[in-house]
């Protein structure tokens, strides 16, 4: 486990005497997570002169952007501290919160450092937001990324490859480097390292959740969204090394829970902390899923664009936004529950989130087949009151500790 957390490539920062401590690293990550104005992106642009392109959840081929010298910037809406002034005027009360905070950030200038925005096909709200964005911000490159729901290489694969080539052309037309196979291969290699570190951190959390509090890991993953892959990799590696070396963190009598449903609009950090304080070790989750959307490494041999396409087709997770053509709905959740030794499942979805909430009855049925206890609640990214959820999660954790298994 710990070996996996050693960086595969040497990087200078952690070897220097001024390497971060756990406290400074987490503080830096939280600073990046909280920075609506994307100062890190602005600095990167000033430093490199490159393009920065934002993307919404869940999956975009970041490798392709990086290969063209473009900084991919993950956007996940706002938080409880973002005052929505204009965004609410664009949405009815029965629509989730992430599009209104995204609009708010666009209109208040926070995202004006971005040269474009990518809207992956995950639901009708994000889809329609792409059209609004096209009208509201005509100067930006706006692309709706129609990820295929057909996973046959000769059908969906051909279409997806065409989508990626079109995206690469659009980026090049905006001044990015043309897409070259070697650069793409190098970017894939860099992201393979990055994803492997995330997988290792998730594995470490499964084994020793007291070492890796989710509220901490979460901000590190969020910070990674606005950093170039090399810096993100360094941060992840440092974080892994530092938590492993941290002696003060001891196991507590908490319930091990898997959290499902929070893959797009994210809960406020306070809610994650609330769950932990309520007696839950979150041993697996759906947060910031782009880091884990592909299960394994993308092969480096052969045509790198084909490899990128095949990775999406063959190695993508069973996201609620992805049609499960073969296999059984909820099977992956059951498998994750087993692998993480979860004692319970928290269905924790944003209000009005179609993919999560329409999926939920099928997932509930799946975990019930394994007699795994579950509970469900909803949130919004700007939820400010957690008392009810704390009581619910606390009762759930207590019930697990008192009545489950042993």
């Amino acid at each position: 486990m710990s070996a996996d957390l050693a960086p595969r490539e040497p990087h200078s920062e952690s070897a220097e005497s001024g390497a971060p401590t756990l406290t400074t690293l987490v503080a830096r990550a939280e600073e990046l997570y909280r920075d609506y104005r994307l100062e890190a992106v602005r600095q990167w642009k000033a430093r490199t002169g490159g393009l920065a392109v934002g993307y919404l959840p869940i999956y975009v081929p970041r490798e392709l952007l990086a290969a063209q010298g473009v900084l991919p910037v993950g956007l996940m809406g706002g938080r409880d501290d973002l005052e929505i002034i204009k965004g609410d005027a664009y949405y009815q009360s029965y629509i989730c919160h992430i599009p209104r905070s995204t609009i708010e950030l666009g209109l208040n200038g926070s995202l004006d450092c971005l040269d474009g925005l990518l809207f992956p096909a995950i639901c009708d709200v994000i889809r329609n937001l792409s059209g609004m964005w096209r009208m509201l911000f005509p100067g930006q490159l706006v692309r709706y990324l129609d990820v295929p729901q057909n996973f046959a290489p000769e059908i969906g694969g051909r279409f997806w490859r065409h989508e990626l080539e079109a995206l690469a052309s659009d980026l090049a037309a905006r001044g990015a480097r043309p897409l070259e196979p070697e650069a793409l291969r190098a970017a894939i290699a860099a992201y393979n390292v990055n994803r492997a570190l995330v997988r290792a951190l998730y594995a470490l959390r499964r084994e020793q959740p007291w070492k890796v509090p989710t509220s901490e890991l979460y901000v590190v993953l969020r910070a990674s969204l606005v950093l170039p892959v090399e810096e993100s990799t360094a941060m992840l590696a440092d974080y892994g090394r530092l938590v492993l070396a941290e002696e003060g963190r001891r196991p507590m009598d908490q319930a091990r829970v898997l959290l499902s449903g929070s893959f797009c609009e994210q809960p406020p950090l306070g809610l994650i902390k609330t769950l932990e304080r309520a007696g839950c070790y979150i041993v697996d989750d759906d947060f910031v899923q782009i880091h884990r959307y592909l299960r394994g490494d993308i092969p480096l041999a052969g045509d790198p664009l084909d490899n990128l396409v095949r990775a999406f087709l063959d190695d993508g997770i069973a996201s609620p936004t992805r049609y499960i053509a073969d296999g059984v709905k909820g099977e992956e959740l059951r498998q994750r529950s087993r692998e993480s030794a979860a004692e319970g499942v928290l269905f924790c979805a944003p209000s009005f989130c179609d993919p999560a909430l329409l999926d939920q009855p099928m997932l509930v049925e799946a975990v019930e087949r394994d007699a795994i206890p579950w509970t469900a609640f909803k949130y919004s990214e700007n939820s400010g009151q957690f008392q009810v959820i704390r009581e619910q999660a606390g009762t759930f954790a207590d019930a697990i500790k008192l009545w489950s298994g042993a």
Partner: protein
Amino acid sequence: MSRVEPTPEPAPRGAHAAAAPGEAQKDSSQRRQKEMIARHYDRLAAAPETGEKSVYTFVPGNLTELLRSFDLLPVLPEINALQSGMRGKSADYIALAEKQGHSEDVCTYVKSDIGMLESGNVGPTGQRLPLPDLLLLSYTGCFTFLKWFELLREKYRCPVAMLHVPYQAEGKITPAMRGYVVDQLRGEVIPALERISGRRYDEDRLREQLRRSAQAEDDLVWVLQSARNVPSPIDAFFGAVYYVGPIFSAFRGTEDAVAYYRELRAEVAERLRAGKGPVTPDGEVERERYRVVVEGPPNWTSFRQFWKMFADEGAVAVASTYTKVGGVYDLGFRHDPERPLETLADYCLGCYTNLGLPTRIELLVRYLDEYRADGFLINSVKSCNSFSAGQLHILREVEKRSGKPGGFVESDLVDPRYFSAANIKNRLESYFQMLEQKRLGATA
């Protein structure tokens, strides 16, 4: 959408002979449609005995001609859901689905359908619907479709054929998009239909269906465009949901549909010649006061009440977007028998909710102009993010570009809890008053 007697039939008055109270007088086309639907549901009910196979699918992007070319019977869960709404059954169905764990936040068509299924799967004619032999997931313009059929697959344990139709985000159909759909038709959908039906794909048979589709589409477009006249002989929203029934559902490509639209066109032509306004359930609109374009689906649980709120004010819908969800024909598209699979792909790609927001806005602005409308109204339904997300932006943009005022009301498709009659009526009345004031201001 299809016409099955859930509510009192429109009762024409004026030049038509007055019907006795409670008795609806039907035009010839209405009777024909009713008979078509009854025959279809009879076949469905008898399917377990006759061995006919049924395919559940969706209205947008439906492949009726293709299914019919295999002698397969289409079943459209959306239509069952809206019929449940009109027949006052959806509330119980939704409650049952929510009791089983379906969120109050999600599409009520889905929950109504699940509730109906759990209650014995009795369709709008009171007959039991057959179990699906195949779920044809035409994933066109609505993400919820994907989840809906995943849910149904869990219940029915039957095969699913997926047809992913790319979204027209940039307002055009590219060769890659068309090719992707055609590839799926050839590689996935047709083989699935062959397996279910036991028949080989017969392209000549499909061409015949498509030829008939185009004939019916010509007549439908003529009927819808008759609303360009002042006064309009039709209501292109409430009334037109009946008109689009056959072509949006199980009948496109059939001789029945051709005959229905020919007859409907003749009837509307006669109304136009006589200078008559639209027929509503409460009689004819004798004085057209306001011409409006409507964006969004109707509310089905209070459909008649909703319509009356318009008719009482002399408001006539002269164009609507809902009547384009099963195909946008008035911009020129026709099914083309010379390119059978490509034309099916173009049809699927062109359905209204598969169009990007900028295209939807352009269409509304065009309708306002071409149909000489006074303004437009958005009925924003809670259930349908495909329609609703972005409608407030549409409202502002269309107002800005057309210079015509927009109104905004909120309801739902089939959940009666979200139809607040007093609130909606109040908003509509205020809106029509605003149109009146604007008109007075213009003439002052």
